């Protein structure tokens, strides 16, 4: 099923192959990611650093290469996260919508089957996610939210490492063409 080559940039959108997933995968995997985020840290506090919903949104975005689908998935996942947090509805929603859209856009241009690319994308989209959330909370809600650059960079790296493994697992859920 591997169709990646040594090139990172695709010369055209046609060159990139669109991955397809069954509907239940797109419904269940984000739900499990959200459940992981809200349930597992009860017993393993350190796992609260993982932003699995973000990684899942990003994965489906870059693999399906469908901007509208990706931004809608991001919006739904983000709103679900907002619902399970004290935030007003929309903060995570907007951030994840943007992540979905931009990830799908990037996915059209890059060979996202390469591990390095995936890791870099996870790293940058985690940073983007945190930065956008910080901006929105400050700008829209007028609240002070701590943004520690060093800590965020480390967390981005950790999430990127986890993201690569997670993507490898999610690859197995792709429909075979």
């Amino acid at each position, binding site marked *: 099923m591997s169709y990646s080559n040594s090139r990172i940039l695709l010369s055209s959108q046609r060159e990139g192959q669109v991955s397809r997933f069954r509907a239940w995968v797109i419904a269940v995997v984000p739900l499990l990611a959200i459940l992981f985020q809200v349930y597992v840290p009860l017993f393993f506090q350190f796992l609260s650093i993982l932003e699995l919903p973000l990684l899942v949104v990003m994965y489906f975005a870059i693999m399906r290469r469908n901007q509208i689908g990706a931004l809608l998935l991001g919006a739904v996942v983000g709103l679900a996260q907002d*619902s*399970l947090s004290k935030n007003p509805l929309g903060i*995570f929603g907007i951030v994840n919508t943007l992540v979905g859209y931009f990830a799908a856009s990037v996915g059209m241009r890059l060979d996202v089957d390469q591990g390095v690319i995936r890791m870099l994308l996870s790293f940058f989209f985690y940073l983007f996610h945190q930065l956008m959330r910080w901006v929105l909370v400050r700008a829209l809600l007028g609240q002070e939210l701590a943004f520690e650059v060093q800590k965020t960079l480390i*967390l981005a790296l950790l999430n990127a490492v986890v993201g690569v493994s997670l993507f490898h697992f999610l690859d197995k859920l792709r429909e075979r063409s």
Partner: protein
Amino acid sequence: MEGFLNRYRSITVLLLVIFAQLILVAVGAKTKQDVRLIRVWSVSAVSPVARLLEGARGGGIGFLRRYVMLHDAENENRRLRDENGKLKLDNIFLKNELGRADRARALELFQTKTASKAVAATIIMMGAGSNSMEVFVDRGTTSGIMRGMAVVTPDGIVGIVRAAYPTASEVLLVTDPDFAAGVISQKTQARGTLKGEGTTICKVDYVPTEDKVEVGDWFFTSGDDRVFPSGFPVGIVKSVRASQPFQEIAVEPVGLKRGLEDVLILTEAVHQDIPTAPMGNQPIYIAPPPPLSGGPLTEVPTGTGTEADKLRSIYKSVGESQSFTYGGDPGGRTPDFTKMPVGANGQVTGATKPAPPPAPGASPTLGTPGQASPNPATPPVSTNPQPPTVRRSNQSAGAPGGPGGPPHQ
């Protein structure tokens, strides 16, 4: 126009979705009440799964482990090793069960001792987002939970119900920066406002500089906020810095100190007095409830405090009954500890009460507090029928108000 929309379809949808969510944020921020249906859907979708996971966690994992172990029993050595492992697992499982039962008992004891009406709840998940300071409990509107209810444990206050859904409720913890509650210091009655800081330490704001507050002082709820009834422990002062016009007081909340699993949600809060006795940091033993058919009061050991204190007083009484002076000649005679003073029901009596000599034929056993009374008609008042782990948990669950009872009354 149509061609334009087709060409920029993605960006148009993006802008529409962002705009819709901006309206959601604006409505939520302005009215503090956003589209509740979306939250209800999300919580209703996630909380049953979390509940199932929580239910399956104890039994399921234990069963799976034992099952795997049985299949690994191929030879004698492995069988024995596995059996040993199984017993250890059983032990852990039973300890967990005892701990769970004890937490339930502690909550039940607390419920009987406080005038407020409460509903016990279990924490099933945390709020979304890293470093989340809110949790979800398994009780919702169907259990009578409403927004704004106080959440406590026998140790102290935990948080406030931020939102109630049919199957679950969201609790804002005391450590959340949005949390605030009226508090009062036990010693000097200095009033202030407890605020979360997003860390494990909270601060008490608006305490004037002239009010005296010291490290180690206890803060209780003042009842001013009309959420928490007065008299519930809040926390211990960790640091005080003089500042103008208000002091900077850091408080360690006691409600979260031992972790969170089971909590009480106060459905009908009743104010209670703030204890005047000094609070101890050590967990205090909660005495078991008095027997229904009371035994003679002379059987009650007057040794107060921990089991070690009681044991010490018993040995002291043995020495006194044999005219032995503790701390005397190191090379001298030692008391005969086989002749323990035994009461009418065959139990070792308390120390400071003069004990009769052992009855002829009576077994001179060292009566630990866990022993059962040989006379069922007179259950021992001094005994605690629980195993040590349970006792420890009870001690930890007990309010630190002293042996006379918790301070919540």
